[in-house]
């Protein structure tokens, strides 16, 4: 019985430990964009560091939750294969549709509406930021 209680405590401590790691990872992902510009060197740009702290850490967090809290590490392989198949479907759908959304022209086609909207929105944002800077400038002096 004593052994049983010990196992019980051990498992609870394991879950709390995983939760602690998840919180540390959360803090790193929040701080990522703040510290990234200071860590730049050579080919390693700030946006790459932010991508790593945002999505690299998200993948690690998801793995920790799936393996330890959902017990995927001790679940029958059938489940992992099924989940992996669904993820493959997702990638397939992405691959099938993304060229139409991410590109705005090809050899024989052009998405005039999308290009016009990007141009309009960027021009509007440019004006707005000029306006803001102007206002800040005036307020500052």
């Amino acid at each position, binding site marked *: 019985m004593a052994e049983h209680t010990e196992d*019980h405590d051990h*498992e*609870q401590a394991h*879950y*709390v430990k*995983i*939760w602690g790691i*998840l*919180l540390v990872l*959360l803090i790193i*992902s*929040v701080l*990522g*964009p703040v510290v990234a510009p200071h860590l730049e060197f050579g080919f390693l740009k700030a946006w790459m560091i*932010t*991508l790593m*702290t*945002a*999505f690299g*850490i*998200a993948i690690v*967090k*998801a793995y920790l*939750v*799936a393996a*330890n*809290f*959902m017990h995927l590490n001790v*679940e*029958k392989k*059938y*489940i992992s294969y*099924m*989940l992996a*198949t*669904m*993820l493959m*479907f*997702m*990638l397939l*759908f*992405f691959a099938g*549709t*993304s060229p139409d*959304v*991410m*590109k*705005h022209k090809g050899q024989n086609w052009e998405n005039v509406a*999308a290009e016009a*909207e*990007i141009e309009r*929105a*960027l021009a509007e*944002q440019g004006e707005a930021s000029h306006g803001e800077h102007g206002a800040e400038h005036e307020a500052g002096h």
Partner: protein
Amino acid sequence: MSMTKPIATTRSATGIPTGKLAVWWVIGSEIVIFGGLLASYIMHRLGHPQWAEYASHTNAWFGGTNTFVLLTSSLFAVLAHHAAEQGDGKTAAKWLWATCAGGAIFAGIKAVEWTIEIQHGYTITANGFWSFYYTAAGLHALHVIAGCIIMLIIANDARKGIELHRVELIGIYWHFVDIVWIFLFPLLYIAK
């Protein structure tokens, strides 16, 4: 009691209990639902440079706090499962209520966040980014609310020591909802 159960509840070709297998298949289909939504968000975000400015108005503190709340509620859910495994229905029910409280806090924070954003004119029709923002986070929030309702029903049974295996099932679903948020958080709040 077991005599009244349908055959499908007790037989298992995979060696996995039927209820658990069903939850995993629900999650499998949810991966395609949320995965499709997030994948189309990513392709639109990459294909439209003006979205960077739209996305810069989300508040990472709201998102970060909600991530903390959901991660903590996931810990409570797995502790509920642990208690149920020991046959302790009362403790399992208490952890499930705590998990549910986490879900309620999450929804409350979301309500405050959305109210502030809508007051600033960032509505679902403001532009493509905000349409995705409310659709993705809204679909996720619906899953949180649905999970909470199911969890309260299961907690009520667990308290009486009935169907304790269901504590694990709702836990698996809850962790999945947590994982969806783990990806929504950097997509909507961090990678600006």
